[in-house]
């Protein structure tokens, strides 16, 4: 195992929707998803993509207004008699007001749809911008700026859901000493296939922040447990994961088989928690788990005072 380095990662922004992370440079027609606030090439401040889209929509509406006005102007110009002139002017004004009212009332609904269209239209540019970011990551790796590389990859990872990105992130993360205050991620890193490095990372994460182990991690472990068992201390690793699953009753419910199988590798303090849980809910279909736990406690911790009287 390589020596891990201690490091402090940049904080990542928290957003409700991913698109909020996209910034646009209106001058260069490029997009940015990292933490910079000004365009690297032109120095112009980035604008959130939603604002850009709204500006486009607003202008389209203005263009419609002008078109209508142009028609009315032409109508007035082509008027031959006073009556026609008055009609053209009057009807023109009415149409104008109608348009205005309509826009005020329904214009808001157009913005979101237009935004979606805007995204579709700008997809190529967006992808190009992401690719450029990936190239930057590659350069950083070459120059040894692994921290930067990780941070950038993490941001890109918000948009692209692929094993390559995940595996790279894991690779980068495995270089560092993990701490609880690091905003560690786990769920977002699960590859679609078995990955040894990921399991190494899981091992480290569980030590620091077992709360990150969620359903998807458990499912992954259960699915690839045979491969994991081939690892060094693989059984203990699974035991740790199973221990982490004891945080919530629903997890225990779902992953009973895993817990029963690796009950021997549960740490003492986790087994204690399990015993308490089993005791509380033993009549809710947990009979098998109860027996296994009882058996394990009886065989190994029969004299431990903490366990006394639980089961």
């Amino acid at each position, binding site marked *: 195992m390589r020596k891990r380095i201690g490091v402090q990662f940049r904080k990542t922004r928290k957003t*409700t*929707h*991913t*698109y909020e992370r996209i910034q646009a440079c209106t001058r260069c027609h490029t997009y940015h998803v990292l933490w910079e606030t000004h365009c690297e090439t032109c120095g112009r401040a980035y604008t959130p993509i939603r604002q850009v889209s709204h500006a486009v929509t607003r202008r389209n509406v203005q263009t*419609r207004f002008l*078109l*209508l006005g142009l*028609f*009315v102007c*032409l*109508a*007035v110009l*082509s*008027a*031959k008699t006073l009556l*026609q002139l008055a*009609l*053209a002017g009057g*009807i*023109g004004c009415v*149409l104008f007001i*109608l*348009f205005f009212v*309509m*826009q005020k009332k*329904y*214009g808001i*609904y*157009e913005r*979101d*749809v237009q*935004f*979606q269209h805007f*995204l*579709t239209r700008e*997809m190529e540019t*967006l*992808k190009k911008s*992401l*690719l450029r970011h*990936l190239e930057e990551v590659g350069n950083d790796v070459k120059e040894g700026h692994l921290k930067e590389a990780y941070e950038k990859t993490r941001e890109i990872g918000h*948009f*692209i*859901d*692929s094993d*390559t*990105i995940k595996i790279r992130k894991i690779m980068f993360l495995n270089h560092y000493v993990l701490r609880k205050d690091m905003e560690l991620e786990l769920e977002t890193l699960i590859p679609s296939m078995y990955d040894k490095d990921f399991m190494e990372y899981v091992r480290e994460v569980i030590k620091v922040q077992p709360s990150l182990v969620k359903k998807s991690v458990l499912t992954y472990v259960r699915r690839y447990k045979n491969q994991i068992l081939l690892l060094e201390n693989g059984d203990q690793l699974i035991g740790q994961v199973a221990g982490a699953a004891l945080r919530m009753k629903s997890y225990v419910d779902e992953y009973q088989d895993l817990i029963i199988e690796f009950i021997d590798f549960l740490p003492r303090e986790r087994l204690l928690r399990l015993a308490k849980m089993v005791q509380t809910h033993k009549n809710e279909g947990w009979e098998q788990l109860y027996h296994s736990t009882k058996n394990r406690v009886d065989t190994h911790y029969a004299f431990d005072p903490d366990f006394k009287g639980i089961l």
Partner: protein
Amino acid sequence: MLTYFLLFAAFLLLAVRFLKLLRLKRRNLSNAEIDQHLHALLNEKRDSP
């Protein structure tokens, strides 16, 4: 004659616009849907990078 024709054209423009806005209102897109759409677009082909 041309005047009335042009006024009619303006009115038509207004009507088309109104119908379009009405349709958009019916659709009433949420932000989550937009986000989903974005993800779908980003990951539809390019799985490699």
